[in-house]
């Protein structure tokens, strides 16, 4: 039986036994390489389920849709390791109750899809530990290194060119499971901290603020990067910030549902070489 069929059976079981009220998964999209989020509420709807190497979107943002979890019923969701880390963070930040989430874990390597054993986010802690071990290597990106070789002026020019394209559609924010604020900082207008206009200055500010608010929280799922209709390489900034919190504070976001958020905690002996 293929993984997809195994999981279809599992989804049907979960729904018909009443363990979960809904399973969030993937179905076919407009083109062969696209997948759409699928909300499965009856065992029959599981027929549409698809699971293959194109199922890369992190669906966990749907879990915090208003009202979904407020009835305290359980919801199943297809998650890759980055998605499992995401729900750990959401739980750590008190956005959801991790007990309510049944994880249907899978991983993709190349074209290969493998099932991950476990049911709740906690079951995957060994896997996530190993991700942390590999993180310094995994976060490496030749483009980041290239950019860091440049002088600040050139780097500024690079980002100026990239951000000048931004149209402030906020697809990056909306696609990000971590961007759950009821009122985003750009929508706060007394005072208006970030220019809402999408001239380059406003775009620059927005993208810096967005990246800062995700520092130490981003799991690198790539939802923002894929969502961007003007193809700004947001993953570079996010990955650079992940490198920073890993290097400076030995922190990888989403290790467990009790992990303290890196910017809401401190150690007395945190390094401070830059402070005069």
């Amino acid at each position, binding site marked *: 039986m293929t993984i997809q069929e195994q999981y279809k059976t599992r989804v049907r079981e979960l729904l018909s036994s009443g363990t979960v009220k809904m399973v969030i998964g993937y179905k076919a999209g407009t083109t062969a390489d696209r997948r759409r989020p699928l909300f499965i509420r009856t065992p029959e709807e599981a027929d549409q389920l698809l699971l293959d190497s194109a199922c890369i979107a992190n669906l966990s943002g749907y879990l915090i849709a208003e009202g979904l979890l407020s009835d305290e019923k359980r919801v199943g969701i297809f998650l890759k390791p980055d998605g499992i880390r995401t729900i750990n963070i959401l739980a750590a930040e008190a956005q959801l109750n991790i007990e309510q989430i049944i994880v249907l874990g899978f991983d993709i390597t190349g074209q290969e899809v493998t099932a991950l054993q476990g049911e709740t986010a906690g079951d995957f802690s060994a896997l996530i530990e190993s991700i942390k071990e590999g993180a310094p290597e995994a976060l490496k990106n030749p483009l980041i290194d290239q950019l860091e070789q440049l002088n600040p002026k050139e780097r500024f020019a690079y980002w100026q060119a990239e951000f000048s394209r931004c149209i*402030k559609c906020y697809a990056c924010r909306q696609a990000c499971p971590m961007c759950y604020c009821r009122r985003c900082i750009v929508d706060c207008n007394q005072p208006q901290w970030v220019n*809402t206009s999408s001239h380059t200055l406003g775009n620059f500010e927005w993208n810096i603020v967005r990246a800062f608010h995700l520092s130490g929280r981003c799991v690198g799922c790539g939802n923002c990067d894929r969502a961007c209709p*003007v193809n700004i390489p947001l993953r570079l900034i996010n990955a650079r910030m992940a490198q920073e919190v890993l290097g400076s504070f030995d922190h990888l976001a989403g290790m467990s549902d009790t992990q303290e958020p890196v910017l809401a905690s401190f150690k007395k002996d945190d390094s401070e070489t830059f402070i005069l």
Partner: protein
Amino acid sequence: MTRILLSDKLDNCVARWRKAGLTVIGPVKKETFSSYAVVEKAAEFDLGLVLPDRSIKGLFFPQTEPMLEYTIKKQAIDTKDFAPPSDKRIIFGARPCDASGLAIDDPLFGWDYKDEYWFQRRNETVIVSIACTRADDFCMCTSLKLAPDSTKGSDVLLRPLQNNKGWLVQELTDRGREAFSQIADLLQEGSEPAAPTVVVAEKFNLDACVAWLQNPANFDSSFWKEISMRCIGCASCTFLCPTCHCFDFQDEGDTYSGIRRKNWDSCSFALFTMHTSGHNPRATQSARWRQRIMHKFNYFPGKFSVNSCSGCGRCSRQCPVDMGITETLQAISTLKP
């Protein structure tokens, strides 16, 4: 016999137009992203694109545009107007769907109060469209009763030659004729056949959809909730759309001096309609998606006798969750009116 513009003469045309003081604009692809951009040479054009990522709208209705500059003095306020630029422009290689989008929005910007920021640019811009010989899975002009060679909104329509060496020239307006009179000697008479335009399959039955949308009972249909469940509420569909025209005013500056700007805004944002009291007429994403569809295919045509959609398919092509007008209308066309 018709007039033909050969591709290898295009660079001369661009030079000629530039010399005549026209800003030449066309589809340009830079690395991962394409848009209509200013060019100096024909080689910068990428005429092979199905469609540039960004629509033509921004050239007439920029994403952000200064409108007023204010300076507050003791007992007086100086207000200076930013007029729209008066440069003459030619857009070469627009797609017919993009050009139609402009014609669709004309009545909106012109009813009763005339928005000069739009019309000044419209009047000073010549649009030379090229009929499509390629399409992708998202193109849907035919479903909107338009075609890959629609002339709507264009000043000149070019049809690619079968031998791929140039285009048949069809001048449509005086503006177009004037621009092409400047390159008349670069054109030649010819009888080469035009390449057939691409066949874009009809994706939904528009009339059936409109009938369903016009039935007031369907306003509260559970369909809206189902179809928009995965909508994440970003504005990429509305901002890439060649016909979406909603905007916002923002003051940037302080209480002494600053600039009032006109910025794109989107009906998919929750704050778009939020009252100060906290009451929001369109409080849910499904209500907002319903508004978008209703506005395009029911309300707008009711006012201006034209659908507010030109079938470019950008909404579906770029949607982070693979939604879009096509999917919604396809689903609606299967429902009972």
